[in-house]
């Protein structure tokens, strides 16, 4: 049966839940966006309880890491990930603990690669996001990630920034994380048309950072190829410093 999900993790997992519930023997999942005007053969509304149960099921069968792979794998937004994820989830259900050790199984290797690619980009942004201080004291960080890494950044910045209000804005997808008072919330749609007012110290801090950054490189050891290899150009757009 051909199923379609709405693009969100919750909707995808709801489809997976229904596939297991209906014992569909030959399921294929597409995103509705890929199907375009075509109607899927089977539907599943997004149901947070179903999604939670699928993740919990994976966790109970194969551990926290397996559950984490499913989330990170989906957020990679790689084309064809639905099949890899579904195969992996069935593999976990069948094999139980030790599912991840089957490195020779294509679904395990493939999902591991997807999950790692998402995590790598998320970890990269933990370092490369730059916040700007707005007039009201909010810290604002715009970026344009390739994969949907925003949810993976939530906990780290909530913990790091504590009481200071902050916002991480995915300009490509138009979504954002807002944090304050040690908590966070995800907003799937945020307008990108905004006139931002920065705090009076902001310009000075940016200049200070650029100066420090330039002074940090040791003359006689210039290595622009290595620098470029470490920070690929796609990350440069929102950096304060110029590599």
């Amino acid at each position: 049966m051909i199923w379609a999900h709405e693009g969100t993790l919750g909707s995808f997992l709801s489809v997976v839940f229904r596939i297991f519930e209906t014992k569909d023997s030959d399921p294929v999942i597409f995103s509705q966006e890929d199907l375009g005007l075509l109607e899927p053969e089977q539907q599943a509304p997004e149901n947070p309880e179903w999604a939670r149960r699928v993740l919990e099921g994976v966790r109970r069968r194969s551990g926290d890491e397996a559950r984490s792979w499913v989330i990170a794998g989906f957020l990679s937004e790689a084309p064809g990930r639905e099949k890899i994820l579904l195969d992996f989830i069935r593999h976990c259900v069948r094999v139980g603990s030790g599912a991840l050790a089957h490195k020779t199984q294509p679904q395990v290797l493939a999902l591991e690669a997807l999950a790692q690619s998402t995590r790598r980009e998320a970890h990269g942004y933990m370092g490369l996001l730059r916040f700007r201080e707005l007039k009201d004291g909010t810290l604002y960080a715009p970026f344009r990630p390739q994969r949907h890494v925003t949810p993976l950044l939530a906990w780290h910045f909530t913990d790091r920034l504590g009481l200071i209000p902050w916002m991480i804005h995915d300009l490509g997808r138009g979504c954002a994380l807002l944090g304050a008072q040690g908590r966070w919330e995800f907003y799937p749609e945020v307008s990108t048309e905004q006139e931002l007012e920065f705090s009076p110290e902001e310009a000075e801090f940016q200049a200070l950072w650029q100066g420090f950054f330039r002074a940090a490189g040791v003359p006689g050891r210039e290595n622009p190829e290595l620098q470029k290899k470490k920070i690929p150009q796609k990350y440069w757009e929102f950096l304060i410093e110029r590599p």
Partner: protein
Amino acid sequence: MTLQEKLEILGAGARYDVSCASSGVQRGNSGRFSGGLGNSAASGICHSWASDGRCVSLLKVLFTNQCLYDCAYCPNRRSRDIPRTAFTVQELVDLTLGFYRRNMIEGLFLSSGVFGSPDHTMETFLKILQILREREKFFGYIHVKAIPGASEDLIRRVGAYADRMSVNIELPSAESLARLAPDKTPQGIFRPMRVIAVETQGAQEVSRHLAALRGEVAAEPAPEYGVTGAKSRALAAAKAPGKFFVPGGQSTQMIIGASPETDLQILGLSSRLYQGYGLKRVYFSAFIPIGEDPSLPAAGPVPLWREHRLYQADWLMRFYQFAPEELLDDQSPNLDPRLDPKVVWALRHPEFFPVDLQRRPEPDLLRVPGIGPTSVRRLVQGRRHGTLTEEVVKKCGVVWRRARFFVALRGQGPEKSLPMAFLREELSDPGFRPPVNPGPRQQEFQFDLGS
């Protein structure tokens, strides 16, 4: 002088201290709901990469570039005519917090020229750290230098606020230290190292380790620069329970190429430091001539490739269970510029190969060129579930182009009669140019953003 100018001078002054790790400490923001700022990630976080390709993860500055000392190799030496300046305590605190909020840094790396006295300098450090931790509730990463010659009491008090503390050994022998940095003494360097080791591991542990290196019980151990015979293993620091003291451990740095010691001496010393003091890292910094001092080598090419080989050897000692005397000996006491030390060892020990990947124990797998600890882990998992093939081995991350000369799969080994010249050519780094030199590897977890 503006703050901008100060920062550029004092940032430039600190850049030769190559340690920049922000790793090793996992800490949440315990003041998250009451105004605390900052946390610490065990893997460390790189925030940027400077023009030399090195990671920028901390605000690495000198408090002042004034200095009482006149060490021959140092750009900030007393006798040099350069603009001198200093931060105020408040300026440095504001810079740290301002950059941290904007996610430019994981924390502060605080060093300084020696002003007043070593203890006076450390007291200023203490003040800054107290303000950051107690008044500002800053929980980010702090790496603070221990000034050679500082008192034990101050080392202990400053260490209670820092994640990592380091004192630079600078030169690989007492003779070189006396010649190039006569203001510093071996006692002044090793005493802080011992204090930090004792505070992080307990006095008995440290005494035991140091004694094992010399075969006698140590009271106030004299510093030992000699080569060790024992196998090196990075010690896990066992902290006194409940006490916060430099949870990220200590490291040190020595300058390569300013003095005549061989790589064997350098690695031997390194190995003793890991064993005796439980250091997390020994850093090597290629000497960059900054002026004409007759006691130093005349201006020449910066020995980046030598630094690179030393790091490779250091990695072999810490993660691949090699001992320094397996890599070098009195006949060839220096590392080969064209071949990495693991390959050199492999070519010198043909009797060890081919290694049957299906059967040989893990330490043996680690000795194969092209196979590292991650690949070994995957190979061992993989071989439990079936027979290893070339395809599976490649999927485990093995660099087949190198390993193929040294392994046997399914009973089939490599061609026996390959001429040495051919092997050396195949296994050497491209030309004489060292590979894209990563400098000090900042983290054990290599996150490559390419792709």
